[in-house]
């Protein structure tokens, strides 16, 4: 067994950003373990542009955005061991990984979990029907088309209005496929308004809200599906069924943080985010194990993934030097219309970054962060969408005592 100050699990945008910032803070004994053959994570297949507007003030494609961080890590000589799958992270921070040359076992002082997320599949939403080829998630379709040079179909229907689904609707149209429609079971779109505009409206692809797929047909290859309108309880309304002939059904029905290793390490998960409970240092409930990026909560923009990962570096560096961080005794409660917050608890000793999402679409609303009767912060917003993360900086000087905080949007 070898030793390292920090082991980072996953060389995507979060892992790379954390590594670079830690190095610059003087923690140079870092190892990144990456499952794929190259670092960069999912950005390698996200060839569309629009990345980096917040972080770099310019619009980049996914591979270009990733390269900025890959280059920074390489410039510092931070080792990234690729083709390596981490199979266990223990509570005492022993990381075990499988590699073609044999097992890698590292005793780390701190572990940073940046495994990202994975897509919900047909199984997760239980669509009835046969099981033909031609039904796949948007990310899989994206990998076939953008990495493998394989066109996946000609007549396409998309279920779910997630951003990747809409981006693939445009991508497949550009490559000559006919995308008939996008159906969303919820009454509001899941993806960003700009993607509805530039990926669907630009190409005349209709978006039907409160609709879902109720049947899948075809032996061998997909031949058609049935779609129905749903009621407010998301149940199909009899009599509204309509058949569509298609050879491809793309699912963009949500992302789930990939937390098997987190659970194995003994860290508690938040049922709201499906990621770890963390304090303002992005430290999980296991001391010295940190998490950032889509493994912690699904982000809307990669820019915020990088920023979150960078923000944990200071706390992780302090943990490595002192062996502990201030105890986080103040909880942050989700008040009215707030779906989740990151962090879920804080020490109260440090100013911190607060991320959250609202539960429903609201216009002309006010966000309030309070501590009992004491209001720390209010922010007026023209609109708040569940598809968009809200990011705030909270000044520690505004905190009064150690009562719990509440965030609400009304």
């Amino acid at each position, binding site marked *: 067994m070898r030793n390292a100050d920090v082991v980072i699990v996953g060389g995507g945008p979060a892992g790379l950003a954390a590594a670079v910032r830690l190095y610059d803070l003087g923690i140079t004994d870092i190892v990144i373990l990456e499952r794929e053959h190259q670092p960069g994570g999912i950005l390698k297949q996200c060839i569309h542009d629009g990345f980096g*507007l917040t972080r770099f003030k310019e619009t980049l494609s996914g591979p270009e955005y990733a390269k900025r961080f890959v280059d920074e890590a390489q410039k510092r000589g931070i080792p990234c061991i690729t083709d390596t799958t981490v199979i266990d992270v223990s509570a005492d921070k022993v990381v075990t990984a499988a590699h073609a040359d044999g097992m890698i076992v590292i005793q780390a002082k701190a572990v940073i979990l940046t495994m990202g997320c994975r897509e919900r599949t047909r199984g997760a939403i239980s669509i009835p029907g046969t099981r033909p080829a031609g039904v796949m998630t948007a990310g899989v379709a994206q990998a076939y088309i953008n990495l493998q040079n394989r066109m996946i179909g000609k007549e396409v229907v998309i279920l779910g209005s997630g951003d990747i689904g809409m981006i693939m609707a445009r991508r497949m149209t*550009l490559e000559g496929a006919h995308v008939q429609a996008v159906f969303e079971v919820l009454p509001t779109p899941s993806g960003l*308004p700009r993607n509805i505009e530039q990926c669907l409206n630009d190409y005349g692809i209709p978006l039907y809200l409160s609709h879902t797929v109720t049947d899948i047909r075809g032996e061998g290859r997909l031949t058609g599906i049935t779609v129905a309108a749903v009621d407010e309880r998301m149940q199909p309304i009899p009599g509204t069924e309509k058949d569509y002939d298609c050879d491809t059904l793309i699912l963009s029905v949500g992302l789930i943080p990939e937390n098997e290793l987190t659970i194995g390490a003994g860290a508690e998960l938040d049922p709201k985010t499906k990621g770890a409970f963390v304090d303002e240092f992005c430290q999980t409930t296991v001391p010295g194990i940190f998490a950032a990026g889509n493994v912690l909560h699904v982000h809307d923009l990669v820019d915020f993934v990088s920023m979150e990962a960078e923000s944990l570096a200071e706390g992780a560096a302090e943990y490595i030097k002192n062996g502990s961080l201030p105890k986080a005794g103040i909880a942050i409660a989700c008040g009215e219309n707030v779906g989740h917050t990151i962090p879920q608890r804080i020490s109260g000793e440090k100013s911190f970054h607060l991320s959250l999402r609202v539960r429903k679409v609201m216009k002309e609303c006010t966000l309030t962060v309070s501590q009992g009767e004491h209001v720390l912060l209010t922010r007026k917003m023209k609109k708040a969408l569940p598809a968009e993360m809200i990011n705030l900086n909270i000044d520690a000087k505004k905190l009064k005592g150690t009562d719990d905080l509440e965030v609400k949007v009304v």
Partner: protein
Amino acid sequence: MTRDFTCIVCPNGCDLTAEYEQDAKGIRVLRVTGNLCSKGDTYARQELTAPMRTIATSVLVEGGTAPLVSVRLDRTIPKERIFDVMAAIRRVSVKAPVVTGQVIIENVLGLESNVIATKDIAAK
């Protein structure tokens, strides 16, 4: 007359409203509201008169460690030329190695926009 837009310039996705007049001479934009920055104003005016877009796709690589290199346009093109540009991009291939930023097609279809690589692909 007014028309509403969702701004696509950045993730804020502002809800824009443009007031305009239209006659035989064309469209004159009077005012744009709802934008958080000046780019929204420019976008709405352009959208009403001559919509511009960028595209991202891929190009075949010969002798590379991957079959494709991702590409994008470095400047926007008229929206109605998107499929012409796609056809032009589909006709080319490139020999490995390819580096990020490398110009794959210069001044594509005379639209004053270059098709540039967005990924490094090493030679096999």
